[in-house]
């Protein structure tokens, strides 16, 4: 079989869509992080706007509800001076039976320049990127269990901000990894940036052995998983996983894998604690840790806006 070109890069290797972090050249990742750094100052000014996307229309297509992520994309697009249209499709056209591609074709006819897509099915943004007009750019804002690349990039920005050098780090990703698009994007990004020790921590129902093929060390023991870590990324445990065949209860999960001050003490003294939010206090993370001095959960949110500005301005500047 022919290997097809990575659909998010053009013939010059430039980013035209952001669909996944997997397969991105390190230079592309680093450049987005550098660009995000320059946007941070914009966000601290009185007039928080730059004209990079003036006159462009950014459509937020959320086939799955997420007020938070949608809001951060909206803020990022507006700070780039784009016009933003929010479509909560989970409750509109597809509910009336319109197909995904028909919805996209209709919106393209309204002269969209960029689609920010969230969908419950892995790979949906690829389908959209393959079928939209050549001038339209697609940003994956989370697809099924597959990828959440802007979250991955903002996590990398956060790590770089606090730790500088990726090549000496031990990073533990803890919790429901099998269902987590954030975990997949983080694992790819950490690998691309040269992190030598990536650990996936959780029970066997949530951390399958196949993950080793992504270059991680699988740990089913929490103490082993976070001992000596520089960075701990806690994942959100979805409500529907808290009882059933995956886990017996949230309480038992917290007992084994919840991040408490005692467990955090096993990591390096200057370890940082991250979480993509929204956090479940007392399920995956103790409030004392979430609000404690090692937590960088709120800086993650701040950096998230700058990173999304960097992603949108980067891809808008590259032609298919």
């Amino acid at each position, binding site marked *: 079989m022919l290997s097809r070109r990575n659909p998010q890069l053009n013939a010059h290797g430039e980013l035209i869509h952001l669909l996944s972090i997997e397969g991105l050249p390190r230079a592309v990742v680093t450049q987005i992080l550098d660009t995000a750094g320059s946007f941070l100052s914009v966000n601290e000014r009185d007039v928080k706007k730059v004209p990079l996307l003036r006159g462009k229309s950014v459509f937020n297509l959320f086939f799955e509800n997420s007020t938070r992520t949608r809001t951060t994309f909206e803020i990022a697009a507006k700070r780039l001076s784009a016009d933003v249209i929010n479509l909560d499709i989970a409750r509109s056209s597809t509910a009336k039976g319109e*197909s995904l591609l028909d919805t996209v074709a209709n919106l393209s006819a309204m002269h969209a320049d960029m689609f920010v897509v969230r969908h419950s099915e*892995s790979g949906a943004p690829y389908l959209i990127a393959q079928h939209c007009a050549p001038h339209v750019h697609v940003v994956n804002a989370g697809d099924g269990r597959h990828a959440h690349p802007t979250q991955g990039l903002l996590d990398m920005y956060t790590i770089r901000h606090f730790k500088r050098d990726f090549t000496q780090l031990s990073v533990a990703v803890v919790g429901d990894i099998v269902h987590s698009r954030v975990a*997949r994007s983080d694992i790819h990004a950490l690998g691309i940036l040269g992190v030598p020790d990536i650990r996936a921590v959780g029970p066997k129902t949530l951390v399958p052995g196949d993950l080793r093929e992504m270059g991680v060390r699988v740990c089913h023991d929490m103490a082993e998983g976070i001992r000596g870590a520089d960075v701990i990324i806690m994942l959100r445990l979805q409500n529907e996983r808290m009882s059933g065949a995956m886990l017996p209860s949230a309480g038992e999960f917290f007992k084994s894998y919840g991040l408490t001050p005692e467990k955090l003490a096993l990591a390096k003294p200057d370890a940082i604690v991250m979480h993509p939010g929204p956090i479940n206090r007392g399920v995956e993370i103790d409030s004392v840790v979430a609000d404690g001095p090692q937590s960088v959960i709120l800086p993650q949110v701040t950096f998230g806006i700058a990173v999304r500005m960097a992603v949108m301005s980067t891809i808008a500047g590259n032609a298919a």
Partner: protein
Amino acid sequence: MKIAIRNGRVVDPASGRDEVTDIAIAADRIVAIGALSPDFQAERTLDAAGLVVAPGLVDLAARLREPGQEHEGMLESELQAAAAGGVTSLVCLPDTDPVLDEPGLVEMLKFRARKLSRCRLFPLGALTRSLKGEALTEMAELTEAGCVGFSQVDVPVADTLVLMRALQYASTYGYSVWLRPQDAWLGKGVAASGAVATRLGLSGVPVAAETIALHTLFELVRITRARVHLCRLSSAAGVELLRAAKAEGLPVTADVSINSLHLTDVDIGYFNADMRLTPPLRQGPDRDALRRGLADGTIDALVSDHNPVAEDMKNLPFGEAEPGATGLELLLSLALRWGEDHRLPLAQTLSRVTSEPVRVLGDALGSLASSAGRLVEGGVADICIFDPQAQWSVQPHELCSQGKHTPFGFEATGMALPGRVRTTLVAGTVAYERR
């Protein structure tokens, strides 16, 4: 009509015949194989110099989508596809709408197919009513209407008691039961468990979905002695279990699809919905074991697993896309490709799509059992004439099938396929000719 096929390389897998000679056909029968007597006055002569004259292909798994799913495929287009692929007999599956669980539906389907006279049609009846896995169908009535066996297609019977009763009942009459070994719960994912599914975030189907079902089925075959045909094996472990079951003497046979024989989950690439197939594509070692199993006879037959899927059912995110690919027109070429890869004699390669599937069907073919899938004097003239040297690139829009989705399109694979059908005869009548 009297037809002479001259100077072709006549290959009959069942007898081992492989020689350049002639064939004489009168009415629906082969009347002579060998140098033709001057008395034979052909009304039409087909010059087969440089071509292979083989029995028409027998495909044990094709969905024609009639009745009920005509937007995906029609009897006319799909039987035309069969003829274009050199397939002269095919087994169609009962998961239509309505399900083939009533004799009247089977009779209607057979009648419509006969009128088109493109390909012989052998329906499988549903094993349980509406394929629900609860109540048995009227198997004797359905057999009288033309069913050659009973199947659940892709709907596993979750209730083991019902499954045992179904096998007991079928074996009372000597009917064969066609089952795809798949555990009802473990089989729910959209891609094979493994590194690719994990990386892409697709829900996985573990190998155990197949092996657990095989263990259950073999145990039930030991108890009931029912004749079971295992459809679409997908894993190396499954092939091993089948090999052991055959060595033990259990009355089981099996097939593999052209897709599982040539592809792996890596071919899913960036969520290519053409690779959304049932069973899901597994890993390289599985594919290799399937290829070896087909070569050494552990797996009896190669099938197209033809399933025309409409454009709008494929243009969906991978997990939501309808599984299936068009295959009737690719069966011969993909069999030849496999045979070339394994350096098999042509007769052995062709046996997996001619005489072996006929052996699987056995008595269910009735009077055809002695000559379908073979070239014998006095037997039916179901013949496929193909050019073994021709290489062709699959252009999906040029296929006769209404289903234009195939994993083997040239644009996707960059791969040319060997062997091109020139003429297909069904019951001594030309059903297809490539111009």
